[in-house]
């Protein structure tokens, strides 16, 4: 799955336009990722002009992905 640093997102929807799995789309005023649809291809992370998307290959759990990215894992997250 991927993580998005929303604070740096410029809302260009480029990620969505290259996603072959419909796993990311613009909802309201931010990009929304659907981990269950994500196929870990990383195209969104490559194309992102603002460089705010990180691919966590093989990671399925959002908490784990956050930990992988360097954030402190929430309490109870699987390590």
């Amino acid at each position, binding site marked *: 799955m991927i993580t998005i640093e929303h604070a740096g997102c410029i809302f*260009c929807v*480029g990620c969505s336009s290259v996603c072959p799995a419909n796993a990311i789309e613009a909802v309201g005023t931010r990009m929304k990722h659907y981990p269950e649809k994500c196929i870990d291809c990383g195209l969104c992370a490559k194309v992102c002009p603002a460089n705010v998307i990180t691919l966590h290959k093989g990671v399925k759990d959002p908490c784990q992905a956050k930990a992988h990215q360097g954030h402190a894992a929430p309490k109870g997250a699987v390590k």
Partner: protein
Amino acid sequence: MKYDHDAIVIGGGPSGSTFARYCAAAGMDVLIIDKRKEIGIPVRCGEGLGTREVLAQGLELPKRCISAEITGAKVVAPSGKEIVWKDTQTTGWVLERKMFDKWLCELAVDKGVKVHTYTRATELVKEGGRIAGVKLSHGGKEPYEVRAPLVVSAEGMESLMARAAGFKTVHSLYDVDTCYQYEMKPYDHQNLIELYFGNEIAPRGYVWIFPKSDRKANVGIGIGGNYMNAKKGASGVDGADPKVYLEKFIASHPQLKDSSTLIDFGGVISVGAPMDEFVKDNFMVIGTAAKQVDPIHGGGIAIAMETAALAASTAIGAHKGKDFSRSALLPYETEWKATLGKKMAKRLMLRKVMEKLNDGDLDYIFNTITQKDLNDTMDGKFAAPVAKVVAGRPQLLKVLGALLS
């Protein structure tokens, strides 16, 4: 069968608003929905537009939509050699895009079009296997059904409903450019669009400076999507980050290095071939959603407006004949391919040849060609310019020969 509207247009950008304006003027009941809270925002664009397309539609652009008048282009080779190019091809405007999009949308409203903002199409409504409308969600609330015999995707790069309708809308990295742009001030310009080429400056792309009002300019970069994070960026960074290249360009530019940034914006734009098909039963795709974008400069507004007019005339005919089947909508696609499509195909060929050239080749070409050759090239007449270049550098025949077929 009861319908709420004659047509639902998804997306209130230049193609959607123009399409809706023409249809409403011919008596159709049209609804535009746009997922954004405000039409025209956020801007994701260099904001350049040639004058011809707007004038062709009998429109007069209000002053608030124009940031600067453009009188020509300055094309800069990797070596720094400049060619200033002034011609009918290079006159135009740098727009205030947020004003422009809203103005175009308001023109549609003036003709009777209904517009809903902050409204997202969540899925297609089908009846007996045919598309009969869309489900809409306003501000993320519970979706509701709106019915029409014709649904038009003018969704831009994202084109999710077109995807849901079965079109191949997914973009490959090779066929997109990733762009990042700053609005900067001060920049004292000469009302010229400036384009900087070179693989060290922007791999498979270019840096642009588009002049704006009040000593401002859009300074942006587009680089090939397949160069992104390729781990071999010329700047030595891990992957070709457009911001890194852009910062490098700005730091080495005598004027811009001390300028401020006023806006950060960016986007991803199609520079590949248009989709194979634009229509299905009860469904049309227009503009950037159909990948109808110039493969050389990534400009989409002009093509979108021209396309929208074409698609609208087909839709109006379909409405009169009460037939929105694929075959009734096909004239738009056929006509597009015979006119704009031919031009785009030549541009795509040129892009694919240009990306094979190294900086030495580019420098040689810039030293050889004239303004007239540039005009011919952009018009798709490649023979004379190619002959001139190949005469002095025969080894380029292998690459440039593709343009002669």
